[in-house]
């Protein structure tokens, strides 16, 4: 799809066939904050029970995309899309009240900042119970019982004691586990995890990722995981969407993308990751020069062209979507197989 939002011909040609089993379908999502286009026509879909990673540098619009799906954007943000569907509901036209009824119930979210994402004034038990009583009704006692069970499920010892504790009495890793358990209170179909391990120690990161993978397997949960860490993607993603400057520049199943990255940005990202045995002594690790640009609304052409070593004058024109086969697509003038 072209980056220009006013390029319907590109969109109609490249629209992927609708997948019946998709839980979340995002097509042509755009979010602007005043004079900044944070998301510019991002498209991808998440199937039931699938782990879908959105990867990219800071400022690529990954978190904004997640917040746009949850309708949690800050005041002043403009959201629009060609299609934004979740489990058969059209999120674009859903009234705010029904959207709130969906949040925390059928779709839940955990965040990058476990230290500040829990309310310091209320106990863990109170914060976990309220989401259940809000969506499922029933008494507080039943909700607390479920909360204790889920705390145990996410690997927290002595769950009964934890319920009576306050967030400040818990470590960052424990708080993120509490956030995960809280997200699971109503058996959501989709869990959106926005960089859930970035603020944590490496060992804790691995534990949390293992936990997410286990939960995904056991509960049939779809996970939309936002990360900048390609190591995480390689380990747990079924599908990947690489975002750059508000667009999904490459998407598909994980293995083919790692085997044959086709967008220059994806190739650049992968070059930045040290692989044991492949990195030679005294050899510099790859890097992508420059930073993610701030894109004004109405920008046309490839957003990566200023940092791309393959950029030519034609990159300022609307970019075609290339199909590398097997659902592997990317946005670039370079034809499939160019890198081989």
């Amino acid at each position, binding site marked *: 799809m072209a980056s220009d939002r006013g390029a319907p011909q590109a969109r109609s040609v490249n629209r992927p066939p609708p997948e019946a089993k998709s839980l979340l379908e995002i097509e042509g999502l755009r979010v602007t904050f005043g004079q900044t286009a944070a998301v510019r026509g991002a498209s991808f879909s998440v199937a039931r029970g699938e782990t879908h990673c959105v990867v990219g540098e800071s400022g690529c619009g990954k978190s904004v995309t997640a917040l746009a799906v949850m309708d949690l954007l800050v005041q002043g943000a403009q959201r629009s899309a060609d299609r934004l569907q979740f489990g058969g509901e059209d999120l674009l036209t859903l009234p705010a009240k029904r959207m*709130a009824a969906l949040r*925390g*119930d059928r779709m*839940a*979210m955990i965040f990058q*900042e476990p230290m*500040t994402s*829990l309310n310091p004034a209320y106990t863990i038990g109170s914060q976990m119970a309220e989401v259940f009583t*809000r969506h499922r009704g029933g008494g507080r006692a039943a909700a607390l019982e479920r909360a204790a069970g889920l705390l145990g499920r996410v690997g927290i010892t002595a769950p009964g004691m934890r319920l009576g504790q306050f967030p*400040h009495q818990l470590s960052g890793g424990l708080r993120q586990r509490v956030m995960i358990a809280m997200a699971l209170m109503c058996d959501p179909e989709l869990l959106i995890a926005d960089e859930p391990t970035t603020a944590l120690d490496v060992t804790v990161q691995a534990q949390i990722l293992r936990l997410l993978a286990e939960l995904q397997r056991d509960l049939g949960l779809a996970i939309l995981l936002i990360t900048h860490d390609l190591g995480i993607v390689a380990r747990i993603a079924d599908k990947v969407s690489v975002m750059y400057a508000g667009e999904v520049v490459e998407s598909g199943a994980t293995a083919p993308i790692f085997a044959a990255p086709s967008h220059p940005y994806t190739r650049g990202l992968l070059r930045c990751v040290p692989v044991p045995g492949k990195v030679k002594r005294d050899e510099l690790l790859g890097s992508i020069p420059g930073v993610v640009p701030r894109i004004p609304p109405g920008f046309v052409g490839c957003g990566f062209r200023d940092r791309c070593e393959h950029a030519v004058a034609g990159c300022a024109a609307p970019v075609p979507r290339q199909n590398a086969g097997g659902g592997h697509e990317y946005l670039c003038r370079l034809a499939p197989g160019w890198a081989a």
Partner: protein
Amino acid sequence: MLKFALRRLVLALLVALTVMTLSFALTRVSGDLAISIAGASATEQDVALIRHAYGLDRPLAVQFLDWVGRAAVGDFGESYFFKARVSDLILERMPITLTLGLTGLAIALVVSIPLGVLAAVRENSWIDRLVQLFAMIGQAMPSFWLGLILMITLGLNLGWLPISGTGSWQHYVMPGIVLAFSAIPALTRLTRSGMIQALGSDYIRTARAKGLSRLSILGKHALRNAAIPVVSIAAVQLGFMLGGSIVIETVFALHGVGFLAWESISKNDFPVVQAVVLVLALIYIALTMAADLLNGLLDPRLRAQ
């Protein structure tokens, strides 16, 4: 929580002791009490007699301990002017001052918390600007002037409320409003800024992600965190209302403790001045402690320190 409360109590007692020492010392350094009691025309002999009669010829330490010992059981001696026990004078007037102060605080809270929340929720809208303008005007308005304006409009022209005295609850409405206005600007602004900060925090984003109702997000999750500075300042404001309502008590002819203080200062009635200062200081200390305890209940992190 018990340990936290005990620590606050010990702290409060130490402050009270300091205040007692200061209040005793101030009356002693302000001049020879015996001379001021005896008056300008007294002879050397009269002064000596008075000095002995009031126990002022004893060593300072003894006088101090004697005074503290009596004050601890509520005995502040006798007023020079009213010829009555100081404790009776204060007890008689305290209900008026307390009623007035609590009325003022209640009005202030009922007005400023909803206004502050509203302004924060609609930050930078015309409602927010209007609330801030209201707070600024409230701040700039002298209380005696507001009192007179209210008396003219609500009392004289409309005849809705009595303009002076303490006969019924209606008598407390106008002075209560005037007193409230001294606290409303600060409390409104604090509520507003606290709510803006709370609403921008990660835990509010979590609350929204949980699909909680707007009422729960604002009233339960945001307001409780925003309330902590409001509680602290409201306690100080109440202390100020109880001790500093002299102007309002005078304007509305309410014979409360503030009025008593003003009378006794102008008449050099030292035992009364000393006792009023002490009682008001103790009320301040008690209010601050109550605010600390309330904040400890609101925010568990404060208890842990």
